[in-house]
C-alpha cells in the first residue's frame, strides 16, 4: 500500500513539477551572464599586461633599452631649446652628439701644429721673436716660433 502511494503521488509530483517559463529562465540567465561579462574585463587587462611585459623583455634583449631610456632626455633637451627665446641671435643648430653617424662622419679633434689658429687667446700675448720679445715667459717656446723650428725640422724651413 505504501509503495503504491509512493508511485501515485510521487509520480504526480514529479510530472507536475513547477516549471518556469522560457522567458523567465532567459531573463535570469541573461543577468547571470551579464555579470560574467564584467568579470572578463579583468582577464583582458591581464592579457594586456602580459603583452606589455613581453614587449619590454624583447626590447631589453635586443639592446633597445638604453636608447629608449635616453630618448626622453633627448626629447626634453630639444623641446627646451626650441622654446628658449633667442631673439637677437640665430638659433643654434641642434646636433645629436651621441649617435653612430656622428661617430663615423662627425668632426674629429684637430691636431694643433703649433702655428696658431687663433684659439690660443689674445694675439698680443703671443711671442714675437722678430721684435726681440720674449713674451710672457722667460724663453720663447719653440712651437710658437714659426722662424725657429728648433732642433727638429717641422716643415717651416
Amino acid at each position, binding site marked *: 500500500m*505504501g509503495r503504491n*502511494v*509512493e508511485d*501515485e*503521488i*510521487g509520480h*504526480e*509530483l*514529479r510530472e*507536475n*513539477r*513547477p*516549471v*518556469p517559463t522560457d522567458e*523567465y*529562465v532567459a531573463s*535570469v*540567465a541573461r*543577468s*547571470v*551572464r551579464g*555579470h*560574467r561579462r564584467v568579470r572578463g574585463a579583468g582577464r583582458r587587462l591581464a592579457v594586456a599586461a602580459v603583452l606589455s611585459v613581453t614587449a619590454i623583455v624583447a626590447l631589453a634583449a635586443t639592446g633597445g633599452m638604453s636608447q629608449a631610456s635616453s630618448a626622453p632626455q633627448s626629447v626634453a633637451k630639444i623641446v627646451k631649446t626650441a622654446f628658449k627665446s633667442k631673439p637677437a641671435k640665430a638659433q643654434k643648430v641642434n646636433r645629436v652628439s651621441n649617435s653612430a653617424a656622428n661617430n663615423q662622419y662627425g668632426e674629429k679633434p684637430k691636431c694643433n701644429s703649433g702655428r696658431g689658429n687663433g684659439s690660443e687667446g689674445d694675439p698680443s700675448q703671443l711671442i714675437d721673436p722678430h721684435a726681440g720679445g720674449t713674451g710672457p715667459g722667460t724663453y720663447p717656446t719653440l712651437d710658437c716660433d714659426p722662424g725657429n723650428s728648433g732642433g727638429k725640422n717641422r716643415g717651416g724651413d
Partner: protein
Amino acid sequence: MIKRRRDPLAEVESLISDVYAYVAYRVPNHADAEEIISAVFERAVRYRKTYDGSKGSPIAWLIGIARTQIAEQQCQRHHAELELTEAVDDADLEASSLERLTLHDAVRSLDDRSRELIALRYGIGLSTREIAEEMCLEENAVNVALHRARERLRAIMTTGASIETPGGMRRGSTV
C-alpha cells in the same frame, strides 16, 4: 599543479529550473517565488567566489541560499499578514473556497518541513540520502517523513478535505 576553480553557475539554465521547482513547492505565491529566485541568483553571482566544490554540488549551494531567502521572505510576510488578517472579508473567503484544489494547493497545505522534503525530493529530484545530508537527518528519518507527507497529500487529494493554507485561510476542495 594549479587547480582550476569550478564555476557553480556554468550550467545556469538547468539550475534555474531546479531552483524554481524547489522554491515553487515551498512558496505558495507565484510572484513571490519568482522574486525569491531572482534574489537567489543575484546573491549567487555576488558570492560566486566563495563557492567551494568540495562542500557540495552547485544545486546544494543554491538551495542553501534559497532557504535563507525564503526564511527572510516568510518573516516579512508574517508581519504583513498579521496586519491584513482582520481585513479579509467573507466574500473573499467564499470566492477562494470555490477554486479548484490542485496538487500544488495540497502541497501548500502541508507543514513547512514536509514542503521542504517534497520540494527537495520531487522538485529538484534529490535522493533520500542527499536530502538526509542536506537537512542533517538520518536517511530513515527522511524516508519516514516523506512517507507521512505523501499520506497526508493522498488524504487531501482523495477525500477533498478542507485544507488550511499557509496564510491562515481555510479552502474547500471540489476534486
